[in-house]
């Protein structure tokens, strides 16, 4: 069974292995053992905090474990706030109009404006799944488990939450936006800039990036075309977030132009439609041994430190109570009559 759980100290080796497999443009997992160790410690501390009433600097990093093998095969995370230690930069794609009634000319010109508007906001991040586990809706479980955690503990996050999506770059890691814009100001290459950023060093952005709005219409077409566009491989992840209610509100990454998607926590479908109920443990009537059928549901427990989330299938929609198999209950670390949270995996059933 595939289970989402908080990361723990023992996962260091697995995390290093996963980090090795990510690539350029994946700045939140750097293949550096010391950094990853610190990251795990931060996450363990965050999950251990009791009585959190407002978000501070927690980093809720979770992993996807295959209980059959004990392998950690994916990660996902939520930062309770960004930009409070080091500035968090983005470009806002705004509009400036230039019109002359006399000449009958009206131009609405898009502009990129450097900002720190996401300062203090919660971010969902660090989504990575091993290639040979990209099936059986594992990706959806990994991504959406975070919404179950947020639904259960909204006080730990800000009203608005956002996600940065990887932007367009070619097989050599060359980003058209970087080549047309960033390169002129940085005198270093994209990879190097990307690495510096991922190591938490961002002062140089303020020092080197242009303060003034950049006129998008002056950029080469290949750069304009990637603004707000995600990398080929990230299209499914984007669609998934959009189905949950995340929207592109004209914020893009300053390096590769990838979009930030945002939503108010309470408006995320999985948050809004999820409901608490009490677990019964036994043999659910509508589950036939060894047969996978029915709608998919995300089920999580209501614990912080021992948070768990799994994916189940049921033929009939759950009511005010829910019967789980012993295996499911074990995976969720719950006893009978403990509260669980449940929601349809997708906005449309059977998907």
């Amino acid at each position, binding site marked *: 069974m595939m289970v989402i759980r908080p990361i723990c100290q023992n996962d260091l080796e697995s995390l290093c292995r996963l980090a090795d497999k990510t690539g350029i443009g994946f700045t939140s997992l750097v293949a550096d053992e010391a950094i990853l160790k610190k990251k795990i410690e931060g996450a363990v501390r965050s999950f251990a905090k009791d009585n959190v009433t407002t978000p501070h600097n927690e980093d809720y990093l979770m992993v996807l474990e295959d209980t059959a093998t004990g392998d950690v095969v994916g990660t996902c995370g939520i930062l309770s706030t960004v930009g409070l230690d080091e500035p968090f930069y983005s470009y806002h794609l705004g509009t400036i109009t*230039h019109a*002359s009634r006399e000449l009958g000319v009206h131009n609405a010109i898009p502009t990129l404006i450097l900002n720190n508007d996401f300062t203090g906001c919660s971010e969902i991040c660090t989504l990575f799944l091993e290639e040979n586990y990209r099936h059986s809706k594992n990706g959806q479980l990994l991504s959406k488990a975070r919404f179950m955690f947020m639904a259960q503990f909204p006080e730990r996050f800000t009203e608005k939450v956002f996600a940065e999506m990887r932007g367009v770059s070619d097989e050599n890691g060359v980003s058209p936006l970087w080549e047309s814009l960033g390169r*002129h*100001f940085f*005198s270093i290459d994209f990879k190097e800039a990307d690495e510096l950023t991922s190591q938490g060093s961002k002062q140089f952005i303020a*020092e*080197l990036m242009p303060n003034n*709005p*950049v006129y998008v219409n002056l950029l080469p077409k290949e750069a304009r075309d990637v603004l707000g566009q995600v990398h080929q491989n990230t299209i499914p992840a984007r669609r998934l977030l959009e189905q949950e209610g995340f929207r592109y509100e004209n914020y893009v990454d300053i390096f590769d132009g990838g979009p930030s998607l945002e939503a108010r926590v309470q408006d995320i479908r999985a948050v809004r439609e999820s409901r608490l109920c009490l677990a019964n443990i036994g043999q659910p009537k509508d589950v036939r041994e060894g047969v996978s059928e029915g709608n998919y549901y995300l089920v999580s427990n209501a614990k912080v430190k021992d948070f768990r989330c799994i994916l189940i299938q049921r033929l009939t929609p759950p009511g005010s109570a829910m019967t789980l198999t012993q295996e499911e209950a074990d995976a969720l670390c719950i006893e009978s009559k403990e509260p669980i949270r449940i929601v349809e995996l997708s906005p449309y059933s059977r998907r």
Partner: protein
Amino acid sequence: MYLVRPADFADLPALERLAQQAGIGITNFPANRERLNDKIASSRRSFMTDVVQPGDESYLFVLVETKTEQIVGCCGIDAIVGADTPFYSYRIDEVVHASPQLQIHNRIPALFLCHDYSGTSRLIALVVDKAHQNLTAMSLLSKARLLFIARHPERFTKRLFVELRGENDKHGHSAFWDALGRHFFSMDFKKADYLSGVSNKHFIAELMPRYPIYVPTLPEAAQEVIGVVHEDSSQSADILLDEGFEFRGYVDIFDAGPTVEARTESLHTIAQQKMGKALILTETCKGAMHLISAGHLEDFRVTAAPAEPQTAGLGIEKTTQERLGISSGSRIQWVTL
């Protein structure tokens, strides 16, 4: 031989022909009969008005080939630009972006829209017929204006500037315009250039980019022509630079042609010009070529001729005397050419 004098209405057909020859990129001199007529009228008014300090006067001069009495060139001076609507230029400033941590120190040139030449006198539109583009005619026409300014300093500001025509190809395509202006004006260079000559310049305020343009983000072809003089104008540019005009980092907003400026009093012709009596020589003059002017305002005349400076004044030949329409002993201004 050549003579420079104020333009008159009778010169209109000749000016129209010159304007058509001049082509694109000389926004102050559009090939539009009505507009040219206005320019002549405004010039005549300016010459005839009493002026205490510079205002909206504009002075237009023509270059006459004295043998045929043909008009073969023209030039002008605006007493002040930007009085009604601001006068726009791009100032090239370097923006420093430095990161001690990364050991990076970038100085990035950027174009800032400014009005820095508003309120300054401008030399405009030196146009000379192809057949007469020799150094004497060009220098005479260019420097005649300076003698006029020296004669009537109260009519001009303490600083002068000239816009030099920027680089564009023979079809009138400016790489700079294509990379920048076109995106904001939604029209081609010809049209913008024409409008800028005939319309009030309000549309520039409405349509120009309001934020600095970072030069390295422009296409290379556009970067290369910033501050570069059109090859057809290189001779007039050289004359001005020799005079003491300097490039101070300002370029035209349309074609990025350079603007050169100088303090009026420090220009060679103005600093060196002398005033005195005309002495008529009885034999052929062996002296150097001089720029010699006579009269003032609407009677102002300038020619280029050999002359011999003497203690009592300037010795000139009889033909020169006749060309200028003066008598022996008339007060004249001169400077070596």
